[in-house]
């Protein structure tokens, strides 16, 4: 059976697996997810591939109790805004953690996890999530 929409997800493998973003060599700012042009420098910007360390801290978080489709069996789960050590903010699940451990300012690091399965016969999408850096 032919499946549509694979190229868009395939192109995101570097950012989803390895937190690959951009660094602007003109102003020094780092971007995640990757950008097509530096918003600070515009045409004078010079973007280069940049791999983020995966270390950061919880900037903010929420407990999701009414999940979006595909996440129904994971509730309640933590959705965090993570401030990466190198600057950018990313939204991600924080997994393998108990409610009493999660707090703003807690150190976190990336892990490699299953993000979605397109049914039992579709593609399995892997990518980063965060766990507490114990």
């Amino acid at each position, binding site marked *: 059976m032919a499946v549509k929409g694979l190229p868009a997800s395939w192109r995101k493998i570097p950012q989803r697996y390895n937190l690959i973003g951009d660094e602007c060599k003109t102003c020094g700012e780092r971007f995640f997810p990757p950008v097509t042009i530096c918003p600070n420098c515009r045409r004078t910007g010079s973007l280069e591939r940049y791999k983020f360390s995966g270390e950061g801290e919880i900037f903010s978080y929420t407990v999701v109790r009414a999940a979006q489709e595909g996440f129904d*069996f994971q509730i309640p789960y933590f959705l965090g805004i993570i401030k990466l050590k190198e600057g950018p903010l990313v939204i991600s699940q924080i997994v393998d953690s108990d409610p009493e451990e999660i707090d703003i300012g807690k150190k976190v690091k990336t892990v490699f996890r299953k993000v979605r399965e397109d049914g039992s016969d579709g593609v399995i999408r*892997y990518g980063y999530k965060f766990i507490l850096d114990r």
Partner: protein
Amino acid sequence: MTSIAGYGVYIPRYRIKIHEIARVWGADGDRVSKGLMINEKSVPGFDEDSTTIAVEAARNAVEHSGVNPKDIGAIYFGSESPAYSVKPTASIIAEAIEASPNMTAADIEFACKAGTAGIQMCMGLTKSEMIKYGMAIGADTSQGRPGDALEYSAAAGGAAFIIGQRGIADIEGTFSYTTDTTDFWRREAEEFPSHGARFTGQPAYFKHVTSATIGLMERLDLEIRDIDYFVPHQPNGSFPLKVGKTLGFETEKIMPSLKVPYIGNTYSGSSMVGLAGVLDVAKPNERILMTSYGSGAGSDSFSILVTDLIEEKRNKKTLDSYIKDKKYIDYAIYAKFKRKIKGVSMG
């Protein structure tokens, strides 16, 4: 000399006690736990599978070795619980550690010994200088039919080894023993494996592990006293001790690798996880004899001599650190995590 340049392990955080599984099926938990010599087993989280376990172990191995992932010319993934029937896991791992694209990769299947077969393939490729480094991974999230004896031991975990020319432990030699013995199997599209109960013991595990181990010791002219640690495949706690005793190894030489009481049987990970646990504590010039076992059936035995380099290159992500970081779950949550409840999925 082919050598282990670095290694990494990964064990999921969740545990279920043998008593909890026994409670559900009306079995005597004390008796089951004592018979298998397993107290609890690891359980993959809802979003974990053999791929994610392999990637974590592979990343730990790259970090420990200090090797540039672009110098890894081959990745072999050994598992009996791959996420896809068709579509290699090895290429996902290659991408996740940034070793791709100029390299070779494949998934290997030989029940619980596919990972050690991968080590042998990497030995050949590095020794012949076809590649600079090779990576072999054994990882599983194995299933037992509910209530079956295997459900008490089938666990999740994995280990990755980077093989090169110089490292923390030299591989002095390897010897394999292979026969057509159908003691444990799973047909295509079947969810759970079948096994020959008592037949999995004497003609299968014991025959192959002892034959490979004795074969290697004869080839390298080794005596029991030359070996400091014996690391056999660990389907439960009693088989390794029994096979060690038959071969003449003192219990002290087997205990350092015997982690199955705390994590269960990690299948393709089993002997490799045990080896990693020994390398965490081994000293220079100590000799480790590892013998894997895969149903169907075969054993790969390796003699490994620890080098001076190990003192300056200790692995910080030890097996014990993964064993200690745990969270207990009950059978209901276990059933949800392992998708044993109909309709539970990730989308």
